[in-house]
């Protein structure tokens, strides 16, 4: 009888182990719309920070969810369908690629965005490459 219980125990452990393994393997991407922003900043302020000391700013912001408020200067679609919002400066501003799932669920929010107006975006900061890269991002409704 004891052996029987031992076998059952081992089988349960295997099933639980495999379950955890599969869950890790199929772990979905983090949903940015549900993450809390670690920093809330004005677009021009974070641009200044990266301009002054790129390394320090990269250490501070890279891979962190941040919320940025700034002027929308361009709204584009990339060849692969990704919506792209550019804040403050078309060449050296902040480039935000919208999360495709969020964009698909909220087309009217994107539609309503007007260049020249203020917009608040929450996304994962990827660092600086001519401009500050933020992806994936979502538009925060006020």
């Amino acid at each position, binding site marked *: 009888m004891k052996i029987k219980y031992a076998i059952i125990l081992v089988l349960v452990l295997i099933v639980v182990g495999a379950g955890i393994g599969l869950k890790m393997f199929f772990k979905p*991407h983090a949903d940015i719309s549900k993450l809390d922003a670690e920093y809330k900043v004005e677009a021009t302020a974070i641009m200044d920070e990266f301009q002054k000391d790129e390394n320090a700013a990269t250490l501070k912001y890279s891979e962190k969810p941040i919320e940025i408020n700034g002027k929308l200067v361009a709204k584009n679609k990339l060849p692969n369908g990704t919506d792209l919002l550019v804040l403050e400066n078309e060449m050296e501003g902040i480039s935000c690629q919208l999360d495709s799932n969020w964009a698909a669920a909220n087309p009217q929010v994107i539609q309503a965005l007007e260049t020249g107006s203020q917009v608040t975006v929450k996304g994962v900061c990827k660092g600086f490459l001519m401009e500050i890269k933020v992806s994936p991002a979502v538009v925060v409704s006020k």
Partner: protein
Amino acid sequence: MLKKVFILILLVTSVNVFGQGKFIAKNAFISFYSSTPMEDILGECNEAVTILDSENGEIIFQSIMTTFHFKRALMEEHFNENYMESAKFPKAKFKGKIEGFSKDMLKAPAANIKITGQLNVHGVEKTITVPGTLGLEDGKLAATSKFKVTPEEYGIAIPSLVRDKIGKEMEVTVKATYLPFGQ
């Protein structure tokens, strides 16, 4: 800032933009692909920046490693943490020159080219020569390239347990559509 935007608009709308200054693409596409018996591994980046100097045919590509996206979150995690060590080596860079470059190439339909330059990935720099195309596509200057790299050459250690699952070579695809950029 307004001035720059103005110059950009001026350059974009001007007919005679070719043959002067630089061309830029801020959302160039780079992917790498490896087919494995278990599943295909595909990392895609839409945020590479590239500058093409129309005076001498010099071309630069740069990308932030963490802007490569994968189907599975776990793949992305392994890519950044185990293989590329993105925190230590955040950017990849290629700086090269188009062989036999002439300004006419920028006005002609896409044609085959060869580019030789230094590819810096994972802190290791290698000189490579890759095939590609350059020329007008739908009225815009476009560049493409497809070549293979071996992770080990760039000091990227892949554990033997998964070594067989990841192809020996990775196929890298690059696509960029350029806009003239005022200096």
